[in-house]
Every structure is written in structure tokens, then in C-alpha cells.
């Protein structure tokens, strides 16, 4: 708020200085309309700012002057001497009050009312004409200067020219053999230029607080007017943002917050009925993410009634009922951005001012930003606005298509993959192409073909994130990353909707900046957010499955949903006990399945083998395989397997029969249906045996061990458990010993295990049992 006040003072001083000439001229010729208008504008501006800054005294003064001048403008009053004097007295008083505020000293206000009263008198000399320019205190030295934004712009563009000139100089110099002294000077120049560019960029930056400072008051007033209780929370006020961007964001932000109070937050009574606290919450957060600023406005109101919006769209002939019915949920929600739609049936005094969400979105997109909605009906709405940090310098990657280069904003790029090997597939699906990148299906846009620059198959995919979803942009090559100074291109170029601007990079050849979202829109790509699947019903319905090479050389598939992860394990981690395979993972073990023990044994001879870790949310097991191939949509027709077991059935994929593994069968086999004789025997020995029997047995049995307090006749223990401090143990048993200790950090035998550390115990048992089993 302090910044705003300083700005107001500086602005008023400046206008007053400029106005002094007008005032004198008006005094001489009160009928001069131009002068009248200038003075009117001044008091009007002061009035506006005062309401905003909560300066009631100035507000009263300026209001009175404005009323009187408005009457003159309407022809209701003649600008007689009394009126002119009255207005001038008020203008002077405004100046005096402003100076008093600047200096932080009080100013007597006893005769304000007299000044105001004087205005309403007609043809009556003012009793005490105020002396011009009442100076109450020495003018405080300004802490800042005001600069014209044009000047800053010129500085910025001069800066960019300087960068380009330096680049050209460097290019020219490198053509010849460079004198080290010249090179050193050039490097120093480069450093200075870079430093300077940062500084100049910063002159355009302002704390986002400048944008947020006016919000608390606005929220309070708006809420009061609507009879609602709203609490505003602001976070991240110290984030820096381009001045111009702040100006561009002002109206959209105010509009969104008014909407939130008017349409979103319910009345206290309604909120109580819904079980919410009577005071609504609005949270405005700003944060920086790379070279983007994210501003989030979140309320806990009713959210957007999508059905109502859709009905309105139909009622106002924007879309037919059929069109609306065919829309995805996201598209329907986005109808709020359609021109002329409001979820309110009655236009309220606040929000119904002809500024709709369409204008908000247009404003934000104009500065290269994005707006996204997260609607939670009944629970609130979160609106995220994403804008670039600055309008002028952008971090880009340069892509090549044919002979031409284009830039793409770096923050819109998710990843870059080469079309090569098994990781990436491109399939035509009807009229569109679908790229499958590590199992993720994305609509693909071959840039060369789309821009009519050639039909070469793209060799590189750039995954571009847009507001609606991600897609793969096919290009010939990704060349470089470059920081560029982006300027708007000519209107006819911008009108294609494909470009976000133009730039002159170091190469000296102009380069266009592609608009990722615009390209997708122009190409008619369709997204199904979250699913990342193109709009083909067949693809959408299929269950994804992982196709892999099994240990016996055949290809099998397993539903993707069952897979937790794929990992490589050392052969030593595989432990065989009583016909069951177990995989040691960290401190625990899990059942391991394989197509056959022989195949696993021969595969495990190699350095490492790959396993699929499967989970049903509770239990875990693993499946050994030779290697993952790719993710495929599981065809709908599966011939049931006759053998049963772990094979669900057989289907055909690309002309090859593949068996589908039934994860359920694997999990069923996982639950210990162990044959008694085969499970390793764990002898609970010594004085602590009773305790172990009670506490450890369930866990041990769950992990596939049998427990005994005494050895059954004719059987040998695979492992023996004793307490660390126990002397009375059965020394005759030769099985390996695992010692347990009572204290967590006891100084006892370092090989012993704290008795409640289950995972360490299981791992130790598994290790011993494996060694013992050999």
C-alpha cells in the first residue's frame, strides 16, 4: 500500500505542476472548455485514487469539485467567479494535503467544509479565499523517480539492439584469427552487455504486491455490498513481475475475484446449510516457476455449475444441444470463456459490467499467458493464471524443419525424444497420427507437413504442453537452446495463430517463435486431458498392457495396471526355498514368478535379470522376464487359455500370438498355500522362544517359514533364532543362527538384530536360509 501511496503522491504532484498553467488560463477565461476538462480530469483522477487508497478527506474535496465542474460541463451552472475561486481553492487544498501526506505531518482540516460549502454558493464571494499553495512543510525529497514506460521500452529495445550488435561483432571477428587481446575485450563487452541486460530487465520489474495491494479493500467492499463474509489470504506478494504484465493482469484479476465473491462464495446462511464455515475463503497466491509466474485464485464457494453454463450456451444459440451433449467435461467447463455467457441469471451491479471471462482470457493470452480452471462443484473453484515473467526475453529451443528454423518457448516443452528404437512409435489412426512415447499416447503434429514445407518423416518429437493437453510436435531436429528477444510479428503474421512472435537470433536470420497452443488448435488436435489418448474410441477403451520378452523366448503381455515398476536385479537376490522362488528386495522378500525355473536358472546365470514388480495395492510379487518391449492397447478379443494357471488367454498383436498373463493368478499363488514339508524350518530356540512364538511366528509364517520350538523328529532346522543374551540354547543344532537383541541401539553383538525390526529379521532369515539351503 505504501508503494501505491507514493505513486499517488508523485502522480498528483506531477499533474498539479502541469495543471498550474491550465488553472491560470481557466481563471482568465472560465468558458474555455479545454481547460475545464483538464481540471475536471484531475479532480476525477484524484477522487478515484482516494477511494482506492482510503483517503476520505481528499475524496470529499475532490468529489465536491467534481460535482461542481460536472454541473458546468452539463451546462447546469455558469462558471462564475465564485465557482472558479471555489474550485481553485480546492485544487490548492488537494495539493497541500498531498504534500502533508508526503511529509507525514498533520494538516488542519477545520475549513475543508467551508471550501466545499463555497462551491455550492452561487455568486457569493468566498469569505476567506485560500492562499495559493499552502505549504505546511518542506517538501520531502522523493525516494524514486517516475519514468515514462515508453522510455523504458526504448531502453529495452536499445538493449536488444546492443546485444544483436555484439553478436554480429563477435561473428565477424571470429571469421579471422582472433588476437587474444581483442578476444579478451570482446568477452568483457559480452559480460557487461549481459549484466546490463539483466539490469534493464529489472527496471521493468515490479513486485506483484502492486497488483495485490488493492485487493483486500476491494474484497471487503464487494463482500459487504453482497452481504457475504469473505476472508482473503494473499501469499507470495514479493514475486517480481514485468510492470507491463502487472498492468495487463490488473483487470482480469479484479474481475476473477469479483466473480468469486459474487458467483462463487455462497451467502453465510447457504454456507451453513452446506456444512461450510459461514466465512468464505479466497486465497490468492503468486509464485515463480522458471520464467513463468503462476497466480492462483482459489475460493471455497460453490464452483461453476457446468450444467447451467451448458444450458445457457444452448439458450443463447452459441451451440446446439447436440453439440453441447457431445462435448467433453473439460470443453463444457470452458464454455465459461465463451463471449456473452454468465452463470448468473440476473446481472448484478458488480460483475455484470460487460467484462466476461472471455475478455479475461483474451487479455491473458494477449501477453502470452494461459488460464486454467479447476472446478470442484460444491467445493470451490481454483483459477490458475500463468504468465511469462517478462514480455521481452524468452528462453527457447530452436528446432529445424527442412531448411528453416523455429523457436519454441522452453517452458511449454515437456521433453524431447528421438524417433528411434522401441521407445517411440508413430501410428496413423484414421486421419491423425498418434505417437506412443514410453506407453503414453499423444496426438502428433508433423510440423513440416503442417507448415507445407515437406513430407519427411520427423526424426524428433518435441512434447509440447498446452492448456488443453500435451501433444507431440514432429520436427527434423532440435538444434539448440537460445535466449531470444521476442517481438510481436506483423499483424498478418500473428493472424495465422501459429506464431507467438519473431526474433533476430545470433545467426542474423529472422526466426519465428511458434505458438504451441495455436499450432494444436489450427491443426485441430483433440485432447482428452488426463488420458492422453486421441479421440479414437477403440484406443480409448482398450486396457493398456506391457508387452515383454519372456525368459523362454516368447512374447507375453501383462495388464499395465498391475505393474508397480520394472527393475533389474542381481541373480543373488533370487532365493529358492522349497520349490518357491522369492526375490529379496531391500529388507524384505516377495514371491517371484517365472515362466519356468529352468528358464530362470539359465537367465540368472547372466549378470542381471529384469523383473516386473506387481502389486495389487497390498500384496506384492514379482515376475522375471527378459526385457520390456512396449506398451500396447490390449485387444478386446482374447481367447481363453485352456491350461489355466497364470495365463489368462491368447490374443493377436501385429500378427503374432501373445499370451496374456493373469496377475490375479500370480497373486493367488502368492498367498501362502505352501506345502508344509517344503517351507524352511525356523527353530525358535532358548529362553526367548516363548516370546518369539507369540510375536514373531505370525510374521515369519507370512513370509513362508515354518516355526517350531522343538525340532520335529528327522528334520533339520534351516535357521535358528535366539536371543542375543541367552546362554541356554540347544547347542546341538548346526543351523545358522540369527541373534535378536532387546535394545534398539544396544552395544551387543553387531550382527544381532533388534527384535522388533521385522524387515531386518526377514532379510537376515532369507539370507541364512538361502545359504543353508545350498
Amino acid at each position, binding site marked *: 500500500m505504501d508503494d501505491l501511496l507514493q505513486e499517488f503522491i508523485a502522480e498528483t504532484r506531477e499533474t498539479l505542476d502541469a495543471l498550474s498553467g491550465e488553472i491560470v488560463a481557466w481563471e482568465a477565461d472560465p468558458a474555455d472548455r479545454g481547460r475545464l476538462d483538464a481540471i475536471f480530469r484531475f479532480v476525477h483522477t484524484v477522487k478515484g485514487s482516494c477511494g482506492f487508497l482510503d483517503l476520505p478527506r481528499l475524496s470529499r474535496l475532490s468529489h465536491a469539485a467534481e460535482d461542481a465542474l460536472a454541473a458546468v460541463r452539463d451546462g447546469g451552472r455558469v462558471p462564475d467567479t465564485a465557482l472558479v475561486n471555489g474550485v481553485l481553492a480546492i485544487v490548492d487544498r488537494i495539493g497541500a494535503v498531498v504534500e502533508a501526506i508526503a511529509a507525514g505531518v498533520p494538516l488542519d482540516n477545520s475549513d475543508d467544509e467551508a471550501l466545499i460549502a463555497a462551491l455550492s454558493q452561487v455568486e457569493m464571494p468566498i469569505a476567506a479565499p485560500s492562499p495559493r499553495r499552502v505549504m505546511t512543510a518542506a517538501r520531502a525529497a522523493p525516494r524514486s523517480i517516475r519514468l515514462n514506460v515508453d522510455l523504458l521500452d526504448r531502453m529495452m529495445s536499445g538493449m536488444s539492439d546492443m546485444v544483436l550488435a555484439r553478436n554480429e561483432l563477435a561473428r565477424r571477428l571470429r571469421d579471422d584469427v582472433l588476437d587474444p587481446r581483442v578476444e579478451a575485450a570482446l568477452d568483457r563487452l559480452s559480460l557487461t552487455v549481459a549484466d546490463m541486460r539483466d539490469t534493464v530487465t529489472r527496471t521493468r520489474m515490479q513486485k506483484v504486491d502492486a497488483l495485490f495491494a488493492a485487493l483486500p479493500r476491494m474484497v471487503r467492499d464487494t463482500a459487504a455490498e453482497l452481504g457475504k463474509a469473505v476472508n482473503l489470504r494473499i501469499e507470495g506478494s514479493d514475486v517480481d513481475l514485468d510492470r507491463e504484465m502487472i498492468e495487463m493482469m490488473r483487470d482480469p484479476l479484479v474481475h476473477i475475484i469479483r466473480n468469486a465473491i459474487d458467483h462463487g462464495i455462497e451467502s453465510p446462511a447457504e454456507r451453513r446449510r452446506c456444512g461450510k464455515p459461514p466465512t468464505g475463503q479466497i486465497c490468492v497466491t503468486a509464485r515463480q516457476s522458471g520464467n513463468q509466474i503462476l497466480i492462483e485464485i482459489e475460493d471455497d464457494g460453490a464452483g461453476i455449475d457446468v450444467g447451467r453454463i451448458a444450458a445457457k450456451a444452448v439458450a443463447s444459440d452459441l451451440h446446439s444441444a447436440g453439440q453441447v451433449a457431445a462435448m467433453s467435461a473439460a470443453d463444457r467447463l470452458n464454455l465459461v470463456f465463451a463471449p456473452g455467457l454468465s452463470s448468473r441469471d440476473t446481472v448484478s451491479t458488480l460483475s455484470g459490467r460487460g467484462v466476461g471471462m472471455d475478455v479475461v482470457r483474451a487479455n491473458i493470452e494477449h501477453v502470452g499467458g494461459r488460464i486454467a480452471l479447476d472446478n470442484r462443484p460444491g467445493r470451490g473453484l481454483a483459477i490458475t493464471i500463468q504468465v511469462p515473467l517478462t514480455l521481452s526475453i524468452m528462453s527457447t529451443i530452436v528446432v529445424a524443419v527442412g531448411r528453416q528454423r523455429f523457436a519454441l518457448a522452453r517452458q511449454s516443452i515437456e521433453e524431447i525424444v528421438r524417433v528411434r528404437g522401441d521407445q517411440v512409435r508413430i501410428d496413423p489412426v484414421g486421419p491423425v497420427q498418434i505417437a506412443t512415447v514410453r506407453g503414453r499416447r499423444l496426438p502428433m503434429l508433423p510440423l513440416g507437413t503442417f507448415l*507445407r514445407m515437406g513430407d519427411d518423416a520427423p526424426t524428433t518429437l518435441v512434447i509440447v504442453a498446452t492448456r488443453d493437453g500435451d501433444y507431440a510436435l514432429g520436427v527434423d531436429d532440435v538444434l539448440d537452446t537460445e535466449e531470444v528477444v521476442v517481438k510481436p*510479428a*506483423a499483424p498478418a*503474421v500473428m493472424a*495465422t495463430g501459429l506464431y507467438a512472435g519473431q*526474433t*533476430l537470433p545470433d545467426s542474423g*536470420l*529472422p526466426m519465428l517463435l511458434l505458438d504451441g497452443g495455436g499450432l494444436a488448435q*489450427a491443426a485441430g488436435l483433440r485432447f482428452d486431458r488426463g488420458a492422453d489418448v486421441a479421440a479414437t474410441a477403440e484406443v480409448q477403451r482398450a486396457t493398456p498392457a506391457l508387452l515383454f520378452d519372456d525368459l523362454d523366448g516368447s512374447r507375453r503381455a501383462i495388464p499395465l495396471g498391475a505393474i508397480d515398476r520394472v527393475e533389474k536385479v542381481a541373480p543373488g537376490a533370487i532365493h529358492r526355498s522349497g520349490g518357491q522362488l522369492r526375490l529379496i528386495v531391500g529388507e524384505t522378500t516377495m514371491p517371484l514368478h517365472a515362466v519356468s525355473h529352468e528358464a530362470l536358472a539359465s537367465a540368472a546365470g547372466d549378470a542381471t535379470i529384469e523383473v516386473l514388480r506387481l502389486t495389487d495395492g497390498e500384496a506384492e510379487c514379482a515376475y522375471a522376464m527378459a526385457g520390456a518391449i512396449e506398451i500396447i492397447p490390449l485387444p478386446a478379443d482374447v481367447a481363453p487359455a485352456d491350461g489355466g494357471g497364470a495365463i489368462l488367454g491368447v490374443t493377436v498383436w501385429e500378427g503374432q500370438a501373445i499370451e496374456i498373463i493373469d496377475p490375479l493368478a500370480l497373486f493367488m499363488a502368492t498367498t501362502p498355500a505352501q506345502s508344509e514339508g517344503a517351507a524352511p524350518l525356523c527353530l525358535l530356540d532358548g529362553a526367548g522362544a516363548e516370546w518369539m512364538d507369540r510375536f514373531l511366528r505370525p510374521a515369519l509364517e507370512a513370509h513362508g517359514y515354518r516355526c517350531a520350538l522343538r525340532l520335529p523328529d528327522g528334520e533339520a532346522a534351516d535357521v535358528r533364532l535366539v536371543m542375543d543374551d541367552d546362554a541356554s540354547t540347544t547347542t546341538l543344532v548346526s543351523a545358522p543362527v540369527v541373534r535378536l537383541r532387546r535394545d534398539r541401539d544396544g552395544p551387543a553383538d553387531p550382527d544381532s538384530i533388534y527384535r522388533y525390526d521385522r524387515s531386518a529379521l526377514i532379510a537376515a532369515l532369507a539370507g541364512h536360509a538361502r545359504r543353508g539351503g545350498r
Partner: protein
Amino acid sequence: MPLFLIARIAGQGVVFDADQVDAVVDIGEVVDVPRVDLSIRGLAALRSRVVTVVDTRLALGLEPVADHVRRAVITRQDGHYYAMLVDELDDIETFETSPMPHTPPAHGRWGRAADGIVVRDGEPLLILNLARLVPQGSALVC
């Protein structure tokens, strides 16, 4: 008397108001702008500035300017710089202007871009308004 730059486009003598002309240059390499209005040849660098190169003949609804033509008139419209390709540039002179006589509908585009005529050595020259030759930002149907 206003000052005019004399040029030749597709055999027709034309003049440009010198106030509209920033510079006269030979442009360098032109970079394509895919899917844009046909009359935009592309982008070129002029010192440290990017200029939009306009094929003046196409803007007038004629055959395109030959590829090797590099001579251009630089004009600034709405804050953007355009290089308007011309076949030939002549002199700068002052002329008395006179209104367009009569435009037959067939000469539609010439007529729309012309502000009147001047007469030089008995030859009538069209006054072309560069602002009207610059393609506008109306959305294209791609």
C-alpha cells in the same frame, strides 16, 4: 508541394508519399513464414530489426515479383516495419497531386491502394498508399 518517391511495379509507374517511406534498401536473405497471407514473402533482417517483406505485386493482385528482386521500400505501419518489394526505383520529386480519374472495377486492387495521380513528363503515375498495401491481420482460413 509534397515530395514523392518514384517507382515502377509491373510496368506501372507509381509514386509513394515520401512521408511513408523510411528508407530504400536492398534486402538480404528472406526467411519463409509458412501459412501466412500469400502477399507476405517472409521476414528479413535489416540491421538489428526484423522486417516483414511484402510482395507488392501479389498485394495488388498481380503475378508475384521475381525471386531475385531485392529492392524494397521500407515503411513503418502500426509500429511494424515492412519491406515493400518494387521492380525499379527512380527519383524523388515534388508533384502536384490530382484525384484519381475513374477506376474501372477490373482494376480493383490498384484502385483501392491508390490515392490519386501525379503527372510526370506527361506520364500519369499512381500515388500508392503503402498503408493499404500492407496485408492486414484478418484471420485466414487455413
